């Protein structure tokens, strides 16, 4: 058996895959969120940014491929670990009180599933344009697509709920991925996660800002 496969076979190997792909995801959402904020700078800014991205050609393709592979690996590893973890306790407790685990950590699976659904719908919505909640879509006018969609209350609501899920996912993931990779220095209170909280809060706020601003009429 190859070294890599053998490494992956262990739970720690899978956690390493989840951590690395998760960190790629975190880097991506931070960049994505920063780009989104260009909506506040007006139609030209965000449309030309979008045009710039598309003009990079192969680079964009590679980036997209990396992201898709990362998501797939992340999901497969998560599914395999979930199966392993469930099997490790065939009979549960009648009475079980979580002591310190965060709500975020306990909802990684369901929250992750919601995010997967979100990612698919989001791509169909803003990338391919197959979903047109407002009835219109233009590849050249990203700004127009944003304004049209986020005037609809249930679209905004779906995005808000998904971003809450993302925030929680990051709150646990940003912290645990670094620990899973064995990169953290010992600490007197290892459960403390200030950096993760900041990452989660900033990403959440940045993503939520655009739909909310559009909906209440601050933008557009």
């Amino acid at each position, binding site marked *: 058996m190859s*070294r890599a496969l*053998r*490494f992956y*076979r*262990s*739970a*720690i*190997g*899978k*956690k*390493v895959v989840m951590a690395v792909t998760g960190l790629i995801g975190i880097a991506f959402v931070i960049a994505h969120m920063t780009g989104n904020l260009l909506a506040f700078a007006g139609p030209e800014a965000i449309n030309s940014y979008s045009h710039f991205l598309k003009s990079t050609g192969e680079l964009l393709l590679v980036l997209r491929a990396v992201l898709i592979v990362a998501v797939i690996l992340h999901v497969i590893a998560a599914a395999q*670990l979930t199966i*392993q*973890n469930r*099997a*490790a*306790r*065939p*009979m*549960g*407790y*009648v*009475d*079980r*009180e*979580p*002591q*310190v*685990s965060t709500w975020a*950590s*306990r909802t*990684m699976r369901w929250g992750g599933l919601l995010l997967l659904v979100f990612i698919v719908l989001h791509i169909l919505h803003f990338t391919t344009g197959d979903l047109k909640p407002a009835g219109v879509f233009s590849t050249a006018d990203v700004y127009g697509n944003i304004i049209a969609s986020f005037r609809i209350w249930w679209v905004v609501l779906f995005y808000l709920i998904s971003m809450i899920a993302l925030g929680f996912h990051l709150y*646990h993931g940003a*912290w*645990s991925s670094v*620990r*899973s*990779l*064995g*990169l*953290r220095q*010992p*600490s007197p209170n*290892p*459960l403390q996660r200030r950096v993760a909280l900041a990452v989660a809060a900033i990403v959440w706020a940045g993503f939520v800002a655009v739909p909310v601003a559009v909906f209440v009429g601050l933008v557009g």
Partner: protein
Amino acid sequence: MHLRLRVWRQASATATGKLVEYDAPNISPDMSFLEMLDVVNERLMEKGDDPIAFDHDCREGICGSCSLMINGAAHGPMKATATCQLHMRSFRDGETIDVEPWRAKAFPVIRDLVVDRSALDRIIQAGGFISAATGGAQDANAILVPKTAADAAMDAAACIGCGACVAACPNASASLFTASKISHLGHLPQGQPERRRRVLSMVNQMELEEFGGCTLYGECQEACPKEISIDTISRMNGDFIRAGLTDWR
């Protein structure tokens, strides 16, 4: 105190078990939890019933025999305390207390609250040692160990092998147990020659025993009567990655 208990009763490994209710009047708040069970057992036996089986030995929090999931918390509600050191004054008069065995596929129930934890021994067998046969050692002071390293090793070595980390973990993972031994030996100069081999074979054995993986819930650290830190798990993962990418044979 007057308590009601709901205790897991299971006649044998193959029998089906259930929670059985017991009335426990006249309990002194100064009793330890196990002394309370002793009293309940004495009363059961006087009625000709089978006493509740549970593991215990030193009753001073160091042997790691005692277990018990008490009201949904491994070793009960008090932090840094094994069941044998938990006193009834930690409970309210009139309270109903649920008592269950450790639950994990790797810890099959033997009877009532007694489970088989030999999987933990097999993890140690796989590499939780320094190969130093008796007699070949050099003078003890020939190996200098910085105080910080000795202290860090001791923090991890405090593990009593009770299995509370497995019981408390939503994934029934033995990561904290395994990582504490890896950290203990990995902090010391004597532990370096076998460091990579050790982490690979211990982690491998942990998987063979069908424990779950670590999601870093932190429940293990909270349940640990010796307050061993999940930092050890991070350290184990780091060692595993280094060894797994370079040394796997």
